[in-house]
């Protein structure tokens, strides 16, 4: 019936296949970007246009918070844009997962003798790789516009590390939502939630300038901690934050993503297992 030998190959352990299957899922997901480079363009479109708009259109009129002594408005803006791109990433995760689920691709994977962990883990690895590519393109844009990190090499690398850590933690939110939502259209509406969520943060303006209660919410927004910590590490600290949460931005930029991962990774895995309910 087949001229190809279809027998199982040499016996290998579960761990071997878990890694091999995960890499094959990653390969498939990355091939999507190779065949549809426009996906990256779409995902990056909003941050890049925001960078250009804020940088060039408003940039001339805007003063960086704290005014003199600090950097330019661009120095203030860029770390916020990096954080925003990482934060919005969970929608890309959710969209790809919900599209796989609704087209039956995830069911096909589940009906195959592959490692069940590969579907979720592969998504996570792919999204981190894509996030690195997005950060690279965004940083290149920023460099062309004249942005520079004022921090040392180690601090700069640390800042990007924190940005990727935030993205990593939000992958699991995206997978969980992707398995929960009924259709790709529903994933599109996530933007309505994500946009205010990123606005009520320290990304565009210091929370200290907001009404008291709103400022508190903004300061405790997890992405504010990443933003504040990144600004510190890039050498243009954001002025005005005197609360505990702002004083401990570096610590919280580690703790928030770990907490999000601790909650949403099990939720995502449970959701995946419960597909067989």
């Amino acid at each position: 019936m087949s001229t190809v030998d279809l027998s199982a190959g040499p016996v290998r352990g579960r761990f071997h296949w878990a890694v091999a299957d995960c890499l094959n899922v990653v390969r498939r997901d990355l091939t999507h970007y190779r065949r549809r480079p426009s996906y990256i363009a779409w995902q990056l479109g909003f941050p890049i246009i925001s960078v250009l708009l804020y940088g060039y259109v408003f940039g001339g009129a805007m003063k960086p918070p704290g005014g003199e002594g600090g950097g330019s408005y661009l120095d203030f803006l860029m770390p916020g844009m990096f954080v925003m791109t990482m934060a919005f990433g969970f929608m890309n995760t959710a969209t790809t997962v919900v599209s796989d689920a609704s087209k039956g691709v995830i069911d096909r994977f589940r009906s195959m003798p592959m490692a069940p962990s590969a579907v979720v883990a592969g998504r996570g690895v792919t999204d981190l790789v894509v996030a690195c590519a997005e950060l690279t393109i965004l940083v290149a844009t920023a460099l062309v516009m004249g942005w520079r990190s004022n921090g040392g090499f180690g601090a700069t690398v640390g800042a990007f590390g924190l940005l990727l850590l935030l993205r990593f933690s939000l992958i699991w939110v995206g997978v969980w939502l992707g398995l929960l939502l009924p259709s790709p259209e529903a994933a599109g509406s996530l933007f309505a939630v994500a946009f205010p969520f990123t606005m009520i943060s320290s990304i565009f303006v210091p929370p200290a300038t907001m009404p008291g209660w709103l400022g508190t919410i903004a300061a405790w927004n997890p992405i504010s901690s990443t933003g504040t910590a990144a600004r510190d590490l890039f050498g243009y600290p954001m002025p005005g934050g005197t609360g505990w949460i702002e004083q401990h931005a570096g610590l919280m930029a580690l703790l928030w993503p770990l907490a999000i991962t601790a909650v949403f990774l099990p939720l995502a895995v449970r959701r995946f297992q419960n597909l067989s309910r």
Partner: protein
Amino acid sequence: MSTPTTPHAPHAQHTPYSVRAEGLRKRYGDKRALDGFDLAVRAGTVHGLLGPNGAGKTTAVRVLATLVRLDGGSATVAGIDVAADPRGVRRRIGLAGQYAAVDEILSGRQNLEMFGRLFHLGGRRARLRAAELLERFDLVAAADLTAGDYSGGMRRRLDLAASMILAPDVLFLDEPTTGLDPRGRGEVWDSVRALVAGGTTVLLTTQYLDEADKLASRITVIDQGRAIADDTPDGLKSTVGGDRLEVVAADPADLAAVTEAVARVADADAAPERDMAERRVHAPVTDRVAALTEVARALQDQGVTVEDIGLRRPSLDDVFLRLTGHGAGPSRTEPASEPGTGGGTEAVEVAA
């Protein structure tokens, strides 16, 4: 084709069943999707699972393909218990779900190679197997085109090819032709026939009696999560009464003449049934075409004007009417009838 009394092979009594399910139960909230469902599929045959929308066909397939856990009952596939060793089952089955589950961004070839690697064939064998399957399912010309641009029939064939990568013992096909045009349907039927010729056991769900009739050697009828009949296509059709000749008179005054003409060709001991309001006369016939021509000629000779005359194949609705006393329900569907099968109950297909 096997019948209950004359199995398709002399040793068939000893042939193990490829799929056995006993008392399957599955609830979704208050809804009993499977409510004590039994099934036995003989190895090397096509078995049809026939039922209207919402009967539990997809749930049954998903349970057998280890995608859904059972609430009760037990099932073995290729001799392996689905609850005890789902991984072992997955190595021996192929599944083509209700929606063609192919990656729409990858090409057809990339799809098959990707699934091949995930079936642990390794890169080289995955490539060879993909080439082989593309050939077999007549997709060579489109191999490197994006699968999302394929026609419905091509996508289904790619889906079938993907479910065949490991040449599984048992193949589950969930409504493989729903939503396809007649041409795509024919393509899929041909593929299924070729698979079975190669020795695969196929469990195929369908809402179409004629599809089950064409492909399956045995049919289980499912309604509200239960098997309500299990028979050969011929046995099932004899339950429903086979094909019917149907004549609609233009003038109510001609009904007597029409009834007489139809009675002459109707099966013995089956009097024509008459529907006065619709001026309709119908009766079961065996030699369909001869009956049609004879009645048409007779009525023409008598100068009777006929508004409509045609052969009506038993529909899923008829099966249900006989088996349960009620129709297949509000969501009943029937494929567009083939040429020569006039009238009948036709409804627009609504995807579940």
